């Protein structure tokens, strides 16, 4: 076994011995600083996705000593990402999790990553800003909870993330406050995206090319997107601006150490009631890294799981949990769709899957019988994902095979819809143990009436839009979900939230949480841009707090 052998990426750590994989050059390495385990680093960060990867980079660039841990492998996309849906399952978090509730979730492929770079390695690159009012949805819109963040400040950080990732998008975006044009030009629309456009124009609402985190012009060592269409299976050309090829190389260059194949199983607590480091499994043995601060960035299941698993006598209900809210208010996003058959050849496998969208029902409040909003996007599932969708409506046998034959003539519209926060939707620890001997997560989910009304509204509207665009045999996919948020919400009051606006836990002042877990509400857009914006803000806040001796 060796770190150079692609088959061993999941067996032998690559971030070791003073070097890390150069993701831009086959078989090459870049130098990486290493920190001793028994000297406390400034920050131990658990997770290297949109939250942890971004924060590790920004903190290292500000001069902090940072070690980031990821349970997954450090892949070399150019050599190791096959054009194959099934094989690329290696990017997903496929350790067992038990799902129950009235609507048991499907996890893995569209909401969990296990790799350096986290879920951004296989996300669909959709990079949208929140509607400003959502940061005060309780006060202004009458539902959910207010965020402790001001939208104008977030607007600035959104701009910084868009610049850092060279988001490709339109010159003018139709919704929300004015914003500058996107750094890179919008991508060419495929036939599937033009179906969405036709439907919107027929119904008199705005649509737009989707702002995407995949480059439309050369950038550094990456050439523009070649429209191969395997985006959610991992990008083999590095056009996708995942944390793996953006924040992580920057972090390493700035002096951060990233340890791959390192599963953190416990946050260690000192006698002073503060975190003293992390215990992690790497190369078959439990190890310990001392740290002055610990940041949990494992996404909305692994983050509460780690906090709950780290319970001590002093914190019997888990760390940072005096509010009792750790693990609660898990929010997915609703991901229902309408599908239909077009006369023309669409061939939706070409290009990024969601090249066009409308946020009309995020910004329009009239004509709704529900709280919250949704956007919807054009679609391009590859065959395995598409047959799974067909299975979801119960098809099998000849009927299924006949439907699958229409693959190149399909078009669809799919929402990212705002699910309401509910305390009954939660992550807890099950009795079963995983391969590390740690209790597996139990994930409980039930839709509420408001969620169901939103779904009905969206399916009714999208059916009209798809029909207006010329589709026949339209049918509704009624049960899909995507993304994971909540479970450690931020707020102004320690009694009703887990962390402050700075992502600092109320109970333990050197324990931070920086990922989608901190969302009090989810809005009707994909969360990655907001997670990264929060991470950039958190880094600035930490720098300011450190400067005044408040760390």
């Amino acid at each position, binding site marked *: 076994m060796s770190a150079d052998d692609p088959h061993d990426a999941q067996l032998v750590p690559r971030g070791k011995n003073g070097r890390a994989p150069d993701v831009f050059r086959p078989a090459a390495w870049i130098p990486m600083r290493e920190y001793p385990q028994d000297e406390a680093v400034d920050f131990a960060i658990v997770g290297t996705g949109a939250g942890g990867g971004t924060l590790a980079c920004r903190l290292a660039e500000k001069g902090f000593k940072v070690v980031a841990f990821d349970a997954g492998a450090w892949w070399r996309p150019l*050599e*190791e*990402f*096959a*054009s*194959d*849906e*099934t*094989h690329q399952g290696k990017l997903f978090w*496929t*350790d*067992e*999790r*038990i*799902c*129950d509730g009235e609507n*048991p*979730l499907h*996890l*893995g*492929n569209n909401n969990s990553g296990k790799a350096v770079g986290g879920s951004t390695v296989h996300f669909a690159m959709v990079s949208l800003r929140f509607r400003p009012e959502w940061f005060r949805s309780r006060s202004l819109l009458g539902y959910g909870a207010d965020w402790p963040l001001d939208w104008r400040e977030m607007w600035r950080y959104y701009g910084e993330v868009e610049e850092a990732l060279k988001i490709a998008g339109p010159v003018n975006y139709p919704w929300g406050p004015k914003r500058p044009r996107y750094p890179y030009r919008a991508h060419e*629309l*495929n*036939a599937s995206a*033009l179906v969405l456009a036709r439907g919107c124009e027929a119904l008199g609402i705005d649509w737009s090319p989707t702002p995407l985190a995949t480059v439309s012009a050369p950038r550094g060592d990456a050439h523009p*997107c*070649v*429209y*191969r*269409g*395997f985006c959610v299976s991992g990008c*083999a050309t590095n056009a996708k601006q995942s944390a793996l090829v953006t924040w992580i190389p920057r972090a390493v260059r700035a002096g951060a150490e990233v340890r791959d194949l390192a599963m953190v199983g416990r946050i260690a607590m000192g006698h002073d009631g503060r975190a003293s480091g992390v215990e992690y499994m790497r190369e078959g043995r439990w190890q310990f890294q001392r740290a002055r601060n610990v940041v949990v960035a494992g996404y909305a299941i692994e983050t509460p799981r780690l906090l709950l698993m780290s319970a001590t006598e002093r914190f019997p209900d888990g760390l940072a949990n005096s509010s009792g809210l750790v693990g609660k208010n898990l929010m997915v996003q609703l991901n229902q769709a309408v599908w239909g*058959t*077009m006369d*023309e*050849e669409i*061939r939706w496998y*070409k*290009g990024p899957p969601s090249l066009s969208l409308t946020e009309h029902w995020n910004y329009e409040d009239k004509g709704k019988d529900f709280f919250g909003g949704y956007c919807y996007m054009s679609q391009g599932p*590859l*065959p*395995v994902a598409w*047959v*799974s969708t*067909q*299975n979801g409506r*119960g098809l*099998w*046998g*000849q009927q*299924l*095979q*006949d439907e*699958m*034959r*229409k*693959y*190149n*003539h399909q078009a669809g519209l799919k929402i990212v819809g705002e699910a309401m926060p509910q305390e009954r939707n939660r992550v807890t620890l099950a009795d079963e143990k995983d391969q590390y001997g740690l209790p597996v997560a*139990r994930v409980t989910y039930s839709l509420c009436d408001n969620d169901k009304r939103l779904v009905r509204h969206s399916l009714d509207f999208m059916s009209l839009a798809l029909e207006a665009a010329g589709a026949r045999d339209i049918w509704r996919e009624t049960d899909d979900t995507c993304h994971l948020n909540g479970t450690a919400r931020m707020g102004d009051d320690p009694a009703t939230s887990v962390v402050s606006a700075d992502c600092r836990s109320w109970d333990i002042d050197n324990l931070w949480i920086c990922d989608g877990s901190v969302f009090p509400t989810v809005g009707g857009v994909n969360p990655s841009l907001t997670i990264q914006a929060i991470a950039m803000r958190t880094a600035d806040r930490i720098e300011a707090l450190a400067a005044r001796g408040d760390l």
Partner: protein
Amino acid sequence: MTGLPRYPGYDVTAKRDTPSWDDVTRTVIDERLATPHEPHFFDVVEWQALCALCACIVPQDRERPVVPVAALVDARLANNLGDGYRDARLPPMRDAWRIGLRALDAESRSRHELPFSSIADEARHALLTDMQEGGLDGPEWRGMPGAVFFAKRVLHDICGMYYAHPHAWSEIGFGGPANPRGYVRMVANRRDPWEAAEARPGREDQAYKENRRVR
């Protein structure tokens, strides 16, 4: 589109040595195509039930090359490659399959005095329809809901592996692997020369000719 689209003569694996396939993809697909056709996870009894089950779930046209879907499902279970979630009503993947296939045989014996693989197509379909609708709940299921097993394991695993095979991609006209070349023609009714040509009614020969040139 009139009738079901057809792509006569299109074989996605003909692109294996073109710029649409990279080394890692060639390795991955070669390994899948070399999957042994005999079971490694299931025993003989379970294997026969699985083969019969696959023939019902994804019936195959005898005129086309066969997708060895039962072997692919067996290989997946032998490697114990999970999905990352498990409906709390089901036991772990391997247990669910063992229980499910044995229960299916038991239901078949109680109705027809024969195992599932030995009954006629119509009887198989009736049994599976009952399973899908939650009508099977004998003691052999050991409390596992047949309908949940059918939706979350039978359909998910069998169909997922069938459409992971290049023959299935050729059948539906999917472009297949596409790195580093990708695609150029993005709008409707346009194809790159390395994509499948759909047969127009009465012009199957032309599509056949074009598909034999797909590289």
